[in-house]
């Protein structure tokens, strides 16, 4: 999910920000009350914050750019807090107690869906004191290592408890004296190490050589590290690590060339990824085994590249064209760094098949509405799960070319979140509609393709009604629309539902859709899902209206 957000903002910045739903008209207000305990006793003067929460990717962008103000309430002498006059909506409720940790494993913020006029009670938090680990990182000549990332791994103790602070600012990095201080740690034994960044992005951008991970008290073999005991409310100091002198990893060099002709590819982006470190606090929950970006470079005019400071390990290498436009595809390539530099890797790419043609319109209105000065991007999606999607940008004369394709069946659609709101409705090849996508052979160069687009300016409005019970505050209703009549598989559009149950789905091409609402709620060990569907037809002139009923009493599917 983290990458989702990142993509959302990149796309927003790159293509402009798309329309966001406007359904908001909160009037009546609600209250939330609860109690905060510290080590089982009422905690006085703890600030509890209610932060508005969204799940819609487009709204996440909005919230990143315009963070809504949080509401605060302080606890009284009995540990009780109370939010008055909360507008209806979805909130994250959490204590702002940066030095404390949750005594309740796994529970960070509590997300509540507050309906109008609701009075929700018993949103309680149980806290305990966190501990501190502090120390100094030096190099082999005893000089401080500045802005070095510190990693912690909990080896035993309770399950990692949610801390009520985020990794505060630069807390996980050393300062100009080489000193770090990490607080709000749940009691337990931690393996402390330095030498690689917690955040792939900053390690990617800060181009200094990465050092091989060195574990307290100064070993590179994790098995020989000495765990540090963290006691609630206490400070483990002097956790100093001296980094080795030659711990700068290895270099990997090679060449990117076209397999068939041996022509080097200049200006290709070469990136490598690795697996998340096992058991680390920062381990992502993504299943992709090579999910952590390791580094990135570009090839020179001779197609050569060099990656420096690569730690021993297994990696996956990826090659893309810098412009992002489909130009070639690379054979899968994995490599392992053991105890030396790797020389002369040969990464073979293929120009593959291509599809080219023009963008067309069914109506003069659509043609007029199309702004050739705004980027419009088509993506070719292979039917097979193996294939990778390639993109092509539509030129000012409305022509396009997508290359670097593998053989198989290809569907074409417009890039979601683009600033041009047009959807692909039809693909024609030599005047014949391709209902099922385009069959493309190895290295085939298909021309004369006409991609017909329509303005995606239709709207579905609707309301979700809950029957047969009340929603628990932590349940989440989501709604999406799936096109029915289109042979081109275009995007589902998922939106948030407001506190009154209203939703708006915008940016749809005219046509028939299936609208589905579902709610998930959590029982002990189970996740129950209730859903309802309805078919609607949308046209540009009239927004489609739907009404969906979620019957909580009905037998849902357990997941």
């Amino acid at each position: 999910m983290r990458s989702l957000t990142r993509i959302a903002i990149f796309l927003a910045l790159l293509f402009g920000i798309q329309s966001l739903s406007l359904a908001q008209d909160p009037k009546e207000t609600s209250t939330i009350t609860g109690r905060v305990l510290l080590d089982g006793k009422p905690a006085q003067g703890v600030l509890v914050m209610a932060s508005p929460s969204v799940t819609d990717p487009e709204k996440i962008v909005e919230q990143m750019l315009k963070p809504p103000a949080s509401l605060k309430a302080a606890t009284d002498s009995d540990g009780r807090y109370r939010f008055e006059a909360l507008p209806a909506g979805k909130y994250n409720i959490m204590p702002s107690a940066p030095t404390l940790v949750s005594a309740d494993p796994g529970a960070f913020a509590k997300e509540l869906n507050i309906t109008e006029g609701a009075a929700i009670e018993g949103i309680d938090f149980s806290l305990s004191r966190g501990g501190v680990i502090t120390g100094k990182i030096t190099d082999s000549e005893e000089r401080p290592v500045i802005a070095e990332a510190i990693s912690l791994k909990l080896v035993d103790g309770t399950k990692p408890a949610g801390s009520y602070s985020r990794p505060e600012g630069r807390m996980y990095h050393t300062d100009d004296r080489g000193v770090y201080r990490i607080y709000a740690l749940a009691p337990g034994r931690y393996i402390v190490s330095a030498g690689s960044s917690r955040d792939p992005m900053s390690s990617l951008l800060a181009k200094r050589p990465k050092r091989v991970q060195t574990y307290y008290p100064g070993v590179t073999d994790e098995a020989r590290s000495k765990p540090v005991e963290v006691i609630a409310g206490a400070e483990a100091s002097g956790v100093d690590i001296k980094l080795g002198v030659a711990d700068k990893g290895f270099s990997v060099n090679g060449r990117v060339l076209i397999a068939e002709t041996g022509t080097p590819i200049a200006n290709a982006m070469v990136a490598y990824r690795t697996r998340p470190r096992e058991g680390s606090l920062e381990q992502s929950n993504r299943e992709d085994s090579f999910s952590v970006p390791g580094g990135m470079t570009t090839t020179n005019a001779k197609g050569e590249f060099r990656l420096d400071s690569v730690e021993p390990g297994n990696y996956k290498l990826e090659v893309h064209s810098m412009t992002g436009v489909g130009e070639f595809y690379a054979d899968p390539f994995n490599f392992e760094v053991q105890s030396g530099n790797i020389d002369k890797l040969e990464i073979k790419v293929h120009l593959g098949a291509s599809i080219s043609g023009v963008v067309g319109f069914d109506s003069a209105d659509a043609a007029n509405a199309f702004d050739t000065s705004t980027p419009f991007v088509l993506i070719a999606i292979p039917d097979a799960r193996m294939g990778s999607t390639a993109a092509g940008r539509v030129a000012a004369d409305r022509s396009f070319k997508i290359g670097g394709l593998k053989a198989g069946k290809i569907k074409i659609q417009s890039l979601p979140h683009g600033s041009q709101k047009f959807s692909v409705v039809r693909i024609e090849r030599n005047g014949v509609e391709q209902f099922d996508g385009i069959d493309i052979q190895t290295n085939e160069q298909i021309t004369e393709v006409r991609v017909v687009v329509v303005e995606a300016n239709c709207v579905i409005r609707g309301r979700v009604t809950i029957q047969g019970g009340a929603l628990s505050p932590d349940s989440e209703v989501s709604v999406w629309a799936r096109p029915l009549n289109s042979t081109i598989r275009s995007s589902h559009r998922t939106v948030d539902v407001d506190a009154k149950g209203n939703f708006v789905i915008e940016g749809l091409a005219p046509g028939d859709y299936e609208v589905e609402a579902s709610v998930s709620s959590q029982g002990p060990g189970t996740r129950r899902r209730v859903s309802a569907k309805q078919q609607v037809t949308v046209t540009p002139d009239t927004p489609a209206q739907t009404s969906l009923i979620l019957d909580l009493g009905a037998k849902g599917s357990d997941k």
Partner: protein
Amino acid sequence: MNALSQKPPKTNCRNVTMHEIAIGIILSTLFVSAIANAQQPQSEKPAAGDRREVQQPTAAQEKKPQAGGSIKGRVIGEGNRPVADASIMAIPTNIASNPQSMVTSFFRPVSSDADGKFELSGLQWGAYRISASAAGYVLSDSDSKPYYRPGESVTLTLAKGGVITGRVTNLSGDPVVGAVVRAIKVREADNKPVRLRRDLASEFTDSIGSLLGPYKTDDRGIYRIYGLEAGYYQVAAGGRRGQGTGVNYSEALSSPRSGAYDSDAPTYFPSSTIDTAAEVTVRAGDEATNIDIRYRDNRGHSVSGTVSGSKASGQDGISVMLTRAGNGLVEATTYVLPPQKEKGFAFEALLDGEYFVTAMAGSGSMTDGADGLNISVSPSRPVTVSGADVTGVELALEPLASMAGRALIEPISAAQKAECKATRPARLEEVVISARGEGNKKPEDQSLSLLSMLKDTSPNEKGEFTVGFLRPGVHRLDLQLPGDSLYISTVTLPPLTPDGKPIDGTKSGVKLNSGDKVKGLVVTISEGAAGLRGKVVTGKDTNPPSEKMRVYLVPAEPEAGEDVLRYFESELAADGGFSLTSLAPGKYWLVARVVSDQDQAEADHKPLAWDAGGRMSLRFEGEASKKIVELSRCQRVTGFVVSYTPLVRPSKPGRKPTQ
């Protein structure tokens, strides 16, 4: 799965400002693999996702890089000791004509070795800004040139940055934990107003530092801000909508929660508002300690309004910046998101004070260069916050203008060439072209500093160039030539009628209205430039003058009197020495003058010959001085001594009365 713990991050993001957006734009074109998952949010939510990759499409430019060469260099620190492991960045000026070169330089890692040495190899022909960065250190820009070309070498100096440290407590003396603390430079070490960072490269390296996150107080309320340039600072705790530099993508993208102090108005050291904030002096490499802040729970007031004049489609995101009047420091940034038909914006939690509000909208992609990125900017509106909210601020966006054309190097004959000593052949791609506005810079324009940085460009191998992102007004081309064998002979605008003569583009500059795209500029560069080096001494003895002076070369041929490109000027070094290069051959008078605008940085200096009055006064003075020098093709005159005798006439240079 636990629904509570698996929520996607409800992100908040502080202070995304201009250059962060620029970086975002650039990164967004680069993070091919990150965007590989772009499919998922849209189409894969209800169904289990099949993993596919989308490559981020941008300009389909098929430009084969031309081999250029390498720039070698060295990074040194205190006592000329080598600095190892510094990150070296080379930012080309030809981003507009070749965006790929920017990407390449950004991602091809180069760092200094144990001797501080580095080599940026495989560079295409062009001009590059070179910077070095290392955490906790600051780059001194006094000893390096603005641009380097392949084949040249560079020495960069990194000095230990200064530190501000202290403790933040609340009114009852308890530590304030997890509050953002910012150090805001208000004046340079030499007491002058804050200068813009020299270039994009520095901006990038600064931003990389900020990727580590904002400085925050720890569990004891202690903060420590390091790597500061020498100067005078204010220190503020709390408030999320804070300072320009220092957004932190990683935190913004990963942190689900906002801090308890983030929506307060900031408290300035020692415990006050902006007006009464105490200044903290940071000396190079020194530590300012006990900068303790007593935190106040300031609510502040809001400033709100609307933005009009964006593109009809309304799809471009608009950022609105609030800068402090007087010094132009960005105090807050907010965004207007497209679907809001009324395009409203609001800044919350502002302290009382005088501000300017400026809106900027952008669409398109940076990889398409100046033509691909459409930017509109509103005139800045003054706003005073004084104990109450301010509403109804109206901002009207105006598209920026651009100038495009062609540069060419006029060949000289073999016979002429023989007169000249062999010099390194210069290439068109190494010429740096920018545009300078006629008007004086206003402080509030500082918020748009990125635009002025993007303005610099270089021609492609065909000589074509576009100088973009220009605000309405009169602009002149400003060229920096590679080496000293070239000079600029003409800058022309296309004729008004098809059979007319090209218009001199230097005499009065080019008037640009909002959205203008002027085309057809022709810059003719000639080989065989002359050079003149010498020294100015005061009349009585041979001491260099104590006052700040400039020397001017004034064309002595009567017909050249209105040719702006025949006027040259230079600051005097401390020993009175001057060096004028890239001179057109011809006869010149030499004039030395005391200058009054000492506060102006050399880079902001407006040549006197830009206006007719300046030219006239220089010619008058030159004629009177009778100090004539004749420079022939390729001639290098050295050791030229000028004795300065103040004229009876007022020696103040005639600055342009308007603006």
